[in-house]
C-alpha cells in the first residue's frame, strides 16, 4: 500500500515517538581545531595529575601529598587562631605564618611534583599514545605546553590552597577580622607570587626530567633522589664552608631555590635560606638563579618535544 510509510509516520508523530539512528554516522557539526585539542590535553592532564576517574590505588599517592600540604595549612591556621585567642597577638606573631609556609613545605611540595608530574607525559610515551596525538591537529609544542599548564594548574592550587586556609584561619581567629584583613591584605598577592614561583619551579623541573624516560618510576626516583640527597649534602657542606663558597653551595640546595623568591616577596628570611648565608646574596642574583632553574629545564622540555617523533 502506497500510503504505508505516511501512515506510520503519522502514527509516530501522533504518539510523540522519535526514531534514533544509532551507530556510526558522518559528522557535520563544529570542528574547533587545535584550540579544542589543546584544551582536551590540558583537561586530561589535570585529571591524570589528580587521578580523577582512577581507582583508589592510583589516587593514593597524589592525594596523600595534597592532604599533607593542605593539612599543614590547617595546623598552622588552627595554631595561629588558638594563639591569638588564648595567648594574644604578640605570641601569635611569633608563630610560623605565610612567609614561613613554603620554607617548611618546599621539599614535600617538590616530592609531590616528582612523583605526580611524570604521570602526565611518561605513559603517553611508553604506550605510544603520542603517535596518535601528533597525527591530530595539535603540534608537539601544543601537547607539552598543555601538559605543563595542566600540572602547573594543579600545582598552583596545591600551593595556594593551604595558604588561603591559613589566611582564613588568621582572619577568623582575630578578634577584629576586618581590621586584620585591611592591615594584612598584601599577604594575598605575596602568597600568589611566592606560591606561583614554587609551582612553576617544581612543574618545569619535574616534567623536564620526566621527558627523558618512558617510566614514571624512573623519573620520580631520580627527582626524589636528587632532592633528598642534595638537601642534606649541600646543607652540611655549606655549614662547613665560609664566605661566597658556602653561599653558593647552599644555593645548590634544590629545595631552597624557590624559597629565595618567597623570602624576597615577603621580605623575610626562612631557616632553609639562612644556611650558608645564602640569603645575603643580592636579590638580583637570587632571582636570576631561580630564573635559570626554571628556564633551563623549560628549554630542555621544549627541545625534547621539538619533533613529532619524540
Amino acid at each position: 500500500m502506497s500510503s504505508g510509510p505516511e501512515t506510520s509516520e503519522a502514527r509516530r508523530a501522533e504518539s510523540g515517538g522519535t526514531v534514533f539512528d544509532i551507530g556510526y554516522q558522518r559528522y557535520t557539526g563544529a570542528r574547533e581545531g587545535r584550540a579544542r585539542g589543546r584544551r582536551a590535553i590540558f583537561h586530561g592532564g589535570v585529571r591524570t595529575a589528580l587521578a580523577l576517574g582512577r581507582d583508589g590505588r592510583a589516587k593514593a599517592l597524589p592525594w596523600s601529598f595534597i592532604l599533607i600540604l593542605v593539612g599543614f595549612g590547617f595546623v598552622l591556621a588552627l595554631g595561629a587562631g588558638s594563639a591569638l585567642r588564648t595567648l594574644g597577638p604578640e605570641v601569635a606573631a611569633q608563630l610560623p605564618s605565610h612567609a614561613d609556609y613554603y620554607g617548611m613545605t618546599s621539599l614535600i611540595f617538590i616530592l609531590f611534583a616528582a612523583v605526580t608530574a611524570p604521570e602526565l607525559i611518561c605513559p603517553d610515551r611508553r604506550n605510544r599514545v603520542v603517535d596518535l596525538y601528533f597525527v591530530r591537529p595539535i603540534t608537539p609544542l601544543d601537547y607539552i605546553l598543555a601538559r605543563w599548564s595542566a600540572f602547573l594548574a594543579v600545582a598552583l592550587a596545591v600551593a595556594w590552597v593551604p595558604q588561603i586556609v591559613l589566611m582564613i584561619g588568621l582572619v577568623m581567629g582575630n578578634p577584629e577580622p576586618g581590621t586584620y584583613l585591611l592591615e594584612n591584605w598584601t599577604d594575598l598577592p605575596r602568597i600568589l607570587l611566592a606560591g606561583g614561583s614554587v609551582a612553576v619551579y617544581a612543574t618545569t623541573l619535574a616534567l623536564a626530567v620526566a621527558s627523558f624516560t618512558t617510566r614514571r618510576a624512573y623519573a620520580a626516583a631520580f627527582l626524589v633522589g636528587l632532592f633528598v640527597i642534595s638537601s642534606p649534602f649541600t646543607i652540611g657542606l655549606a655549614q662547613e664552608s665560609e664566605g661566597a663558597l658556602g653561599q653558593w653551595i647552599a644555593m645548590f640546595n634544590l629545595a631552597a631555590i624557590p624559597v629565595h623568591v618567597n623570602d624576597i616577596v615577603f621580605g623575610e628570611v626562612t631557616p632553609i635560606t639562612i644556611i650558608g648565608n645564602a640569603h645575603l646574596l643580592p636579590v638580583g642574583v637570587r632571582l636570576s638563579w631561580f630564573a635559570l632553574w626554571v628556564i633551563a629545564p623549560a628549554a630542555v622540555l621544549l627541545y625534547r618535544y621539538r619533533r613529532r617523533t619524540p
Partner: protein
Amino acid sequence: MTDQLIVARGVRKEYGNVVALHSLDLVIRDGITGLLGENGAGKSTAIRIFLGLLPPTRGEVTVLGMDIATHAEARTRLGYMPEHDCLPPSVTAVEFLSHMAQVSGLPPSPARTRAADTLRHVGLFEERYRPIEGYSTGMKQRVKLAQALVHDPQLVLLDEPTAGLDPAGREEMLDLVRKTHREFGISIMLSSHLMGDVERTCDRLALIRGGMLIQEGAVTDFTLETERLSLEVDDRETELVAELEGRGVVVERGERGELLIEGRDASVYDDVRDALAHTGAPLRSLAPRRRALAELFARDGEDLGGDT
C-alpha cells in the same frame, strides 16, 4: 574536486646511511588502496611521512591538497591506525575515544556521542566501559581502528591492521575496513605484507619493494586473466578429465581443487561443452582464470609471506 588524496613526488627518506625510501612517486585516490610490500620495504616509513610524523629527506607530499608539515587543518580529516600498540591500558575505551575525538577538534558533547557510536560500529559497544587493559588483541585492534574513525576523517591510514589477529579476527577486521568505506565513503589506505588481505579488501594496489614503487593500479590489473580456464563440476570429475584429455585438452588440478584447462580459444570452449555433455557432469562454474596476487609475486621471485 580532485580524488587525489595523497600525492607523493620523489620522496626519499634516509636514516643515517640507511635509505628507507628511494624516490617514491605515489598517488592515493578515493577508495581502498593497499600498500603492499615485504617487511622493511618502507611501508611504515611512507605512512609516517604521509602523516607528517617524519619529514622526508627529499621530495614533496601533499595530503588532502595540503602540505601536511605546515597545514595542521589537514590532520582534522586524517585518521591513523598504527601497527604497534598505542592504547593507554587503564582507561575505558569510551573515555579514550571521547578524548581523542576532542583532541581532533570535536566539542565534548558530540565527542562523547561519537565515541559510543564508533565503538558500536567496531562491535565493542557492550564492552565500552571496560578498561582497555582487559581487552583481547582483537578488541584492541578494533579500538585502534575506532580511534582512527571517531572524528569522521576523510582518509584513514591503516598500518598492518590485521597484525596479530587470528584468521577469524582478520576476516572481521577486513570486513570492518570494507564496511567503513562502502557505507560511509571514508577512503582508506591499508598497508600490509599479506597479499590475501590486500586482494580481498582493496580496489587499488601499490607495490613497494626496497623503498621504491614497483607498480600501482587497480587490483584487477594485477590479477589479469590468464590463458587458462577454471572449471568446477559437482560430480563425475574423473570421467570429465578423461574425456577432455581424450580430446587433446591439457588439464591440471588447481590449488583449490578446481580443474585448470590450457587455452582460451573457441575450440577449447567447444571441447569443454562437448565433454560436459558427453559425461553428464553437472557444471558448477566455468570462467577465465584470474591470477592471484601471490602467484604474480611468486613468479617475480618474490615471496611476501603470502597468505592468499
